């Protein structure tokens, strides 16, 4: 019958468009729910377990921030390790950056308690995490700032001096034969 193809076209179009509208609507609902969850976590309330089951990486990152703020460092680290290599480069860089912050915070704690060896371990891990963030996003200013802080905390052993990039030679370490000012014995 004449005009039949137009009826089919109209029907197909109506169905397809309605389906697209529905999908976009779901997407929107999910995005708003995720944003609400993130806001909830950032003001300091944990979210309900059933929301956690469907949480997006963004929500989980916010939850890691929430853990850190409540000094649940173990939970935070576990979550951040889980989030590695998810999402785009910017998101990954943020995950690495937060890992670095977690380690640096603990390094600072240790330094204040004068536990230098442990502080050194945490600072090394923090530096590694910040470097990974900066390799992904070279313009990550917070990572630059905190990497510098981590490096100040535990000065790099090999200071670049006079364009010498090779590891320092062993002879130079023997410059001091003993600790200066150390009593050498009784007269």
């Amino acid at each position, binding site marked *: 019958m004449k005009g039949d193809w137009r009826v089919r076209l*109209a029907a197909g179009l109506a169905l397809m468009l309605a389906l697209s*509208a529905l999908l976009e609507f779901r997407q929107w609902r999910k995005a708003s729910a995720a944003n609400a969850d993130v806001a909830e976590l950032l003001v300091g309330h944990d979210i309900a377990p059933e929301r956690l089951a469907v949480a997006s990486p*963004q929500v989980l990152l916010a939850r890691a921030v929430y853990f850190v703020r409540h000094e649940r460092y173990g939970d935070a680290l576990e979550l951040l390790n889980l989030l590695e290599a998810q999402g785009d480069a910017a998101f990954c860089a943020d995950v690495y950056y937060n890992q670095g912050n977690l380690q640096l915070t603990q390094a600072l704690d240790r330094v204040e308690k004068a536990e230098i060896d442990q502080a050194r371990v945490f600072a090394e891990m923090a530096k590694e995490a910040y470097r990974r963030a900066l390799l992904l996003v070279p313009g*990550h200013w*917070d990572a630059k*700032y905190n990497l510098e802080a981590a490096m100040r905390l535990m000065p790099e052993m090999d200071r670049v001096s006079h*364009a010498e990039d090779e590891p320092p030679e062993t002879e130079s370490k023997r410059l001091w034969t003993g600790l200066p000012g150390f009593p050498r014995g009784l007269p």
Partner: protein
Amino acid sequence: MLPVSRHSIFLLLGLWYGLAPASELPPGVKAFSFDTPRNFGYVIGDLIRHEVRVEAGVGQEIDAASLPKEGWINRWLMLRRAEVRSEGKRQVLTLEYQTFYSPLEVKNLAIPGFELKLAGSDGHLAVPAWTFTTAPIRELSVLRAEGQPPMRPDAVPAPVPAFGPAAASAGFGLAALGALAWWAYLGPWLPFGMRGRYFAEACRELRGLRGQEDTQEALHRGFACLHQAFNRTLGEPLFIEGLDEFFLGRPAYDALRNEIQDFFRASYEVFFGEGAPVPPFDLARMEALARSCLLAERRRP
């Protein structure tokens, strides 16, 4: 600091290094240049991009084995990318470094030079070491006790874009409504649609007459309402003489030509002749014609 764009390399701060006189170049090499960005103002994590341009003879390509290896060059310098591409007659080697040095004060650093080999030639092209200055971005003290917070706070996730899906959903929804309306208008299953309304009215009126006998009065009313529909479709009164022109302008009704002609002939007999329709045209036939006209009107191209 963000990577320095090529624009600034070439136009604003470009420094052309190593423009060796032709006499010092290995045989076959016509031109060689080492193109570098500004050599000051770098901070930890910055990108530095160097370009080496070589114009050499046919077959003298840059030997990939002589390129510096991608990865950590020393403890603070990373070579992210070393790529050769062709640009007309020239070969362009792009080197993208990233510095991770954390200076206590403004400090000179150097990216080491290297020697570039060309395939099928013994000569070397020396890419010189490049010195730049780097500066700290924060005060020296790190500990909390000394005032400033020691570190930048955690990164919080960027909000998930919600406006896009909302707008798209509304747009698709409206478009779907439009398509639905079109569908309803094309299909004969809904009583609306601008083009169907004249015969739809006639249909309704004839349906109202359905229960009655084919009396003179009922026939008169039936013929009158169908005539009315034809007149309104044409926009002026339609008589039997005007039918050919009517069909010419409205090919959708062409399939109903015989039936419509019969209707007009019968109508003439009823109103101006003996009073009985010839050829016989009762109310049921009239209703069938009205329905066919209704469909023709809706599907008219």
